[in-house]
């Protein structure tokens, strides 16, 4: 009897035909909508003219890459992209992590639920709308300056044209807008932690704080790792839409990013090829980042994100 069961188990465990079938739809969708358009990448090596198409446009080798690398604003845009993206990635995980841990400690469930709903609200708004509000709040005669002046007697600061503060405003507002999203994911992971583990910890005399430290955090670490590695994939997407609607000439030194640069390229003169080259360059850099972080994580904790 036991033998039959064992045999059955073995057979079903190693039968993978069903698994292939399950993957089929995703494979097809990916082939059509992700791989098929990749033929367009040859554009980055051409002087692409839409009317001539991919077949007749002139091939120029790496000229487009040379062109974007020598653009005067390329260097500052590249550096800014890294700085902004780096802080956005770190904070957009750290802040929701703290929020979700705090939420998990809340006893009153109505409060917990309401807060959870409310922190999600900014996520629904588009940047076009939020930018208007943020510019109002941080204006020279805006609320923030009023508060600083009246409560702390600080001279008003022209935040919006300040190369010292504006980048921080960009990062902080982005983290604020998106924090509901990751909070929900992390909270899902926290509620998923095996209750028996807490019980065991309590039996061992662990305080609440110790429980968080030794039970909750290690249990949700995989989710945090996933979010971090996925975030690193977007290291060169520092938030185009937001910056486009919020920046101004005076703070360009500190917040101009690759994507806004490409946008200006495209608008200025239909430089499809230069834009494609920039895209390919971004892909390569992101790939390196994810690869390295994946590898580090795998070496350190034997955890595979993919």
């Amino acid at each position, binding site marked *: 009897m036991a033998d039959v069961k064992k045999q059955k188990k073995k057979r079903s465990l190693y*039968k993978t035909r069903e698994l292939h079938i399950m993957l089929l739809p995703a*494979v097809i969708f990916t082939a059509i909508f992700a791989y098929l358009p990749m033929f*367009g990448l040859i554009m980055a090596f051409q002087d692409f003219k839409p009317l001539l198409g991919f077949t007749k446009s002139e091939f120029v080798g790496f000229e487009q890459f040379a062109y974007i690398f020598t653009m005067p604003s390329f260097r500052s845009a590249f550096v800014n992209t890294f700085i902004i993206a780096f802080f956005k990635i770190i904070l957009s995980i750290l802040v929701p992590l703290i929020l979700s841990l705090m939420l998990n400690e809340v006893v009153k469930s109505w409060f917990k639920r309401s807060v959870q*709903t409310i922190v999600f609200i900014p996520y*629904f708004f588009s940047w076009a709308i939020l930018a208007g509000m943020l510019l109002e709040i941080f204006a020279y005669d805006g609320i923030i300056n009023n508060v600083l002046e009246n409560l702390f007697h600080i001279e008003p600061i022209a935040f919006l044209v300040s190369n010292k503060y504006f980048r921080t405003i960009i990062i902080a507002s982005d983290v604020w807008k998106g924090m509901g999203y990751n909070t929900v994911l992390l909270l*899902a992971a926290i509620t998923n932690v095996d209750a028996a583990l807490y019980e065991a910890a309590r039996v061992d005399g662990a305080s609440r704080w110790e429980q968080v430290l030794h039970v909750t955090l290690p249990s949700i670490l995989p989710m945090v790792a996933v979010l971090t590695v996925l975030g690193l994939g977007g290291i060169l997407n520092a938030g185009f839409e937001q910056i486009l609607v919020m920046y101004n000439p005076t703070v360009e030194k500190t917040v101009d990013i690759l994507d806004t640069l490409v946008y200006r390229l495209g608008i200025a003169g239909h430089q499809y090829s230069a834009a494609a080259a920039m895209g390919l360059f971004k892909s390569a850099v992101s790939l390196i980042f994810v690869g390295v972080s994946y590898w580090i994580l795998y070496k350190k904790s034997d955890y595979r994100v993919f």
Partner: protein
Amino acid sequence: MKVKRSVSFYVYQVFNTVVLALVALSCILPILHVFAMSLSSSNAAMAGRVGFVPVEFTFTAYEYLISKKDFFHSVSISLWRVLAGTVLNMVIIAITAYPLSRPTQQFRARTAYMVYFAITMFIGGGLIPTYMVIKNLHLLDSFWVLILPSAMSIWNVIIMMNFIKGLPRAIEEAAFVDGANHWQTLTRVILPMSKPSLASLLLFSMIGHWNAWFDGMFYMNNPNNYPMATYLATQVINNNQSMTNMTPEQLALLSSLSEKTVRSAQMFIAIIPILVVYPFLQKFFVKGITVGSVKE
């Protein structure tokens, strides 16, 4: 000892509550502002006299919206899109994440599949080639263009896959022992245990479909087929061209730049469905699952 601990616990609770309340406040004020704006007179809105309470209370903006058929038509397209798109997304996520969560020794081809999918996270073909592919598939101007290209989201699959990996293996092994095949294991064991994760992915998928505007704009040839988010995007006019030579046409455009109240009303209406659906889904994240109750 006991007293001390409860005092610190009490202090912590208060601190916790205050901080969370402040964070929540910072998030709710914008929507109150938008709501107040939508119910204020347009001059008050333009002059910046509206805070969190309507000034010169009026329903004009909503009346104007209700008189517009295309807005509600676009809302209905969006609702269908959310429904069909989310169902498709969830099915694909489930049947893709499950095989990918199998251990490599059990499913050798897993690595190859994973590489195949992961590459697409970093490399894309760009707008024009994608457009040509979609055009050749005769998907332009069709409802399906809103759903099929985004059917497979590798990001969501990876999140789901990691969640499944984190589930206790004992239960699924028990299922195999009982003679279940992969389909049965997925639908009867894995999915019921993944409710929190499914609920959050469901929410993201819904919000994604509800808010997506660019595909509607780019792949639809006729504004009649625009989903709501695209319709709203066409309403927010941001005229950044140089106005050196103003024609009467551009002049007329100027006065439409300031329909702040109408846009606030549209924004508010656009958020309502999500605010309605969200609390229902939230139940699943909060309750979580009772993994601990599995007894063998």
